[in-house]
């Protein structure tokens, strides 16, 4: 009891312990902020994959494989699979209004199935929203305005269907419903991103008109229904360029834009309606001549034939052995019933997908690529990478090098920061050592009135513990406030001091990801308290070992 009394009085009447508490506060806040930002970065990196490719992707280069519908039907029957969707991924160039051309990853998707796998509808940027973004405190986002609700609603529906309906502003209609393109929000650079609110304001680019003049493109949200041109290279099913080396050029109206938060994706991806991309890349279903074995001369496509009734010669097509070449896709994306955050394991799903694919490959032997095998690694079965089989990968598999580097970096940074925080232990030790010296006579009084050595030691340990409790609690509170406002703080530092620590081009995400994990906060809190008790231990032992007679005579 007397320990509590003395601790309370010492704490409220001395400056040094308050300084020690401040040091502990700074150390705990530093460790927790670091852990939260880096942990949040890793978590968002891992979960971002779900918004880009679901949980698992089956892929076969840029050539693609057939019978994807059958594979998707088989996958969706499995109880662990929530949805599956076909996709084509290819590389190309995008020509934007204004004459700018950029390299781009072109993905062909079916809006609805892609939405079931990745939550695409949510990633579409231009849609009416009910509440502002966390950083948009002044509600400047144009998506919040009631007068835009109808247009934005139409744009959202168009984006999901990947089809252009009449221009919502001008009412200009296309001859037929046209497949459209959905661009990454950072790709066109027509929209001006406001750093404070995190929203986008449509700009007004200068475009060249048909007669060569320059004109400012007027549209509510740019570049709505303004066309962009995609240049791609079609390959046949054996991987050879079709039509020589001439690129296929197609113009698509922009129906919406998307934002995943992954800067690289938002900067360099364009989604196109699947069937139109299949046609452009000649990956759609077609009848074609069966290729002859190597070395055998192909019969000429046409021959001259004499009409037996008239005796006239005429040109006729040579009878060829034809086969139906089914439509191909390069990827089938799979979403698990349980998200990783809910305890789902993408690697376990990958094994399920492999099993389904193996049966699928057996049933379509010779027509689809083989299934990969499995290997044992660390006591768990994993899918073996093989050049002769389709790749079945999770997001983490696809980005293994980078994600492993981030995980290791988190461990390293936490180790370094924790090591730095050990200075708090020595700080408490130094402060307590000096306080014990100052309080030597009081130690003597305590012993004279019957306090035991252990009791005297406990005074200082309890004191250290309370400093740890106060410092760690303040540290946790400070860290929580900072983490929750880290993006506004970062923006303020950038504007006021010119310090920009977070570069979206380096760190993938356009905002600093951070989340306080209660377990991490608890570990940091306990660590802070334990550090202080540890720092108080040696001075406490010193106080306990003091000869009471000498302590009473201390001057």
């Amino acid at each position: 009891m007397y320990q509590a009394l003395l601790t309370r009085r010492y704490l409220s009447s001395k400056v040094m312990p308050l300084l020690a508490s401040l040091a502990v506060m700074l150390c705990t806040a530093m460790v927790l902020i670091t852990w939260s930002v880096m942990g949040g970065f890793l978590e968002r990196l891992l979960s971002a994959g779900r918004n880009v490719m679901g949980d698992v992707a089956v892929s076969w280069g840029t050539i693609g494989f057939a019978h994807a519908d059958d594979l998707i039907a088989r996958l969706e029957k499995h109880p662990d699979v929530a949805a599956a969707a076909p996709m084509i991924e290819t590389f190309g160039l995008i020509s934007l209004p204004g004459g700018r051309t950029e390299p781009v990853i072109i993905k062909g998707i079916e809006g609805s199935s892609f939405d079931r796998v990745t939550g695409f509808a949510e990633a579409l940027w231009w849609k009416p929203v009910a509440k502002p973004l966390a950083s948009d405190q002044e509600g400047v986002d144009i998506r919040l305005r009631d007068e835009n609700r109808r247009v934005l609603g139409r744009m959202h529906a168009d984006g999901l269907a990947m089809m252009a309906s009449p221009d919502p502003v001008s009412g200009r209609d296309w001859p037929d419903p046209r497949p459209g393109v959905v661009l990454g929000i950072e790709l066109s650079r027509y929209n001006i991103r406001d750093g404070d609110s995190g929203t986008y304001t449509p700009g007004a680019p200068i475009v060249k008109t048909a007669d060569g003049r320059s004109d400012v493109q007027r549209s509510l949200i740019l570049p709505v229904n303004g066309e962009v041109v995609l240049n791609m290279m079609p390959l046949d099913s054996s991987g050879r360029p079709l039509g020589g080396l001439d690129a296929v050029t197609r113009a698509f109206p922009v129906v919406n834009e998307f934002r995943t938060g992954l800067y690289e994706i938002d900067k360099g991806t364009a989604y196109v309606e699947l069937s139109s991309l299949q046609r452009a890349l000649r990956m759609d279903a077609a009848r074609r001549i069966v290729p002859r074995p190597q070395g055998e001369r192909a019969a000429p496509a046409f021959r001259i034939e004499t009409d037996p009734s008239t005796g006239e010669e005429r040109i006729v097509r040579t009878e060829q052995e034809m086969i139906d070449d089914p439509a191909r896709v390069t990827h089938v994306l799979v979403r698990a019933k349980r998200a990783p955050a809910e305890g789902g394991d993408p690697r376990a799903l990958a094994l399920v997908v492999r099993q389904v694919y193996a049966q699928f490959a057996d049933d379509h032997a010779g027509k689809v690529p083989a299934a990969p095998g499995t290997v044992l690694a660390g006591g768990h079965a994993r899918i073996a990478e093989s050049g002769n089989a389709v790749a079945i990968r999770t997001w983490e598999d696809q980005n293994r090098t980078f994600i492993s580097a981030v995980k290791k970096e988190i461990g390293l940074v936490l180790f370094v920061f924790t090591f730095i925080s050990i200075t708090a232990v020595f700080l408490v030790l130094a402060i307590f050592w000096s306080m014990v010296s100052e309080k030597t006579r009081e130690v003597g009084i305590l012993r004279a009135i019957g306090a035991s050595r252990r009791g005297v030691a406990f005074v200082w340990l309890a004191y250290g513990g309370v400093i740890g409790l106060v410092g760690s609690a303040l540290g946790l509170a400070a860290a929580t406030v900072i983490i929750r406002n880290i993006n506004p703080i970062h923006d303020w530092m950038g504007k006021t001091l010119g310090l920009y620590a977070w570069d979206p081009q380096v760190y993938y995400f356009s905002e600093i990801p951070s989340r306080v994990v209660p377990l991490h906060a608890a570990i940091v809190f306990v660590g802070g308290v334990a550090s202080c008790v540890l720092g108080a231990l040696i001075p406490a032992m010193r106080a306990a070992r003091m000869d009471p007679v000498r302590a009473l005579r201390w001057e």
Partner: protein
Amino acid sequence: MPFIEAVNLHKTYRLGRVDVPVLRGVDLSIEKGECLAVLGASGSGKSTLLHLLGGLDRPDREPTARILHEGRALDGLSARGLDDFRAGHVGFIFQFYHLFPELTVLDNVVIAAMVRAGASYASVRAQARARAAALLDTAGLGHRLRHRPSELSGGERQRVAIARALINRPEVLLADEPTGNLDRATGRRILEFLEGVRARERTTVVMVTHDPSIAERADRVVTLEDGRLARPA
């Protein structure tokens, strides 16, 4: 049987590489309720004798010494036993008061009850605080309970120290120059207060002083000279 009996007390302190004998064979008997004054010059070993009698320090192991309190040998007690003995049976009063500067007057007195009661203090808290307040009231400090020691005069501080020494109803009060830091008038009032306490609480008092005029107020006076008790003249 004497209330306190000390036999052949030797105590040597080591200062650097030099052994300094302070007590060189002290034999002493004190009766229950007696007020004994130990008179001696500075450095004669008075305070050391007081510390040994109160279990705050132990005599040299060689030659064998004994300190008995009502027949109970202190040298047989463990460190923890000595702590309990000091908490429950002895009240120390020091020349420089030795109060806790951060605590209020009331808490300075109550803390001794806290130390004695340990974990069970909560059950005696109300009685302890009431007794502390009563003792301080008797000492004329009833209106100063919430003050800090730095706000008190020397005489008031010493009265707080006496109240602290009495809170656990000790059988013996060991006072080390209780008026040594006070002016004569204040010292006289402290001694009168101490005599009143002794009469009320029926406490045995051993008082160390270098002032013969203070010593003569005791029932009996012994003189320490060069670590030994001088023979009565």
